[in-house]
């Protein structure tokens, strides 16, 4: 599916990531993302889905890659593993679209109106799911990403231990993936 050398590089980075090297993990995710985006975009175009959906799919795929990274057998090529995850998430997105095409016209009108008000900004699914998480999980997730806080700073701010922050972050990520999935079934 991808260039062999590229897959080799991804596999090396992911192996380091699984051993606990977070810099390698960041590099892996950053390297893979443009490829995921290209795949998602071409799928969206062939299926007539709006481009705004591409980024939602990319983020869902990233979440799935993250939560399921232990299921990659590090002695095997990583390309087919990533490919299977992308396929699964695109199917989810299709189901969601299938459902959306059944919504009554009034709802569509409302949505169109709302989109216009939002000034054409794509409303990411993940953000709407984030709003349904437990308060503390939301705070932690927001604090880490938007303010660029590290785990330690977040722990200090919320007067929690670093371990508790990590656990809350992990649970929040799992819940987000779950919410994305529930929406498509």
């Amino acid at each position, binding site marked *: 599916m991808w260039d062999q050398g590229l897959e080799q590089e991804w596999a090396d980075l992911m192996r380091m990531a699984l*051993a606990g090297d*977070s810099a390698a993990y960041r590099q892996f995710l950053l390297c893979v993302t443009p490829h995921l985006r290209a795949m998602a975009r071409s799928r969206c175009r062939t299926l007539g889905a709006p481009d705004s959906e591409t980024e939602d799919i990319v983020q869902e795929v990233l979440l*799935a890659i993250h939560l399921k990274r232990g299921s990659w057998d590090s002695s095997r090529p990583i390309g087919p593993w*990533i490919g*299977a995850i992308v396929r699964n998430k695109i199917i989810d997105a299709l189901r969601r679209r299938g459902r959306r095409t059944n919504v009554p016209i009034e709802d569509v009108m409302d949505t169109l109106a709302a989109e216009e008000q939002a000034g054409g900004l794509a409303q990411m699914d993940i953000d709407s799911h984030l709003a349904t998480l437990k308060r503390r999980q939301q705070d932690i997730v927001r604090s880490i990403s938007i303010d660029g806080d590290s785990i330690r700073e977040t722990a200090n701010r919320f007067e929690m231990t670093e371990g508790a922050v990590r656990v809350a972050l992990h649970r929040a990520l799992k819940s987000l993936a779950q919410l994305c999935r529930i929406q498509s079934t």
Partner: protein
Amino acid sequence: MRTEDLIDRLVLDPPPRFGFGTVFMAATLLGILVAGGIFLAVIGVRPDIGRAAESLRFLFKFAATMPLALGALGVALRLSRPGMAAGGWRLVLGAVPVLLATAVALELHQVPASLWQSRLVGANAGFCLSLIPLMAFGPLALLITVMRRGAPERPALAGGFAGLAAGGIAATFYALHCPDDSPLFVAAWYSAAILVMGVAGCLAGHRFLRW
């Protein structure tokens, strides 16, 4: 949220401590212990085990149930990983029905037709049908629990193989107790009990293994 922001957060979440293969193996061993515990507590080994162990019919039961359990475990593990096909374990699993059919043919050839029915019905088929699922429940629950950490592309199928594996483990223990050694009995009742577990595994997979 921008995709870069999402990546920032993912990076802060440390990797799982144990690999998927390790956890799967641990669940399997624990499942065998649970099934074995129930076996010892509820039924135990048959009293004439010493004499039975010399009979080919008795030994054949294990030649059927153990490859079944092993092959189904191998397939379930591989199907839990995205982008992997069932692989060589399929052959181990596929050998079991062939073995069973051969044993049934030999039995029909060796035993007079007047005895076929009593061999088939055996001493306690109902016991077989209830005890194998009873002992298989623990291993199945454990396997499904760890397989949630995996990412099966076909969740119901992967769950089904976990069910067959759990049934195979339970049947291996049950064979130590069961006084019916005829391949006719094994082909009918063991298979039925194990297939029930396969269906239970499919349902559990469909319910719990989607991601």
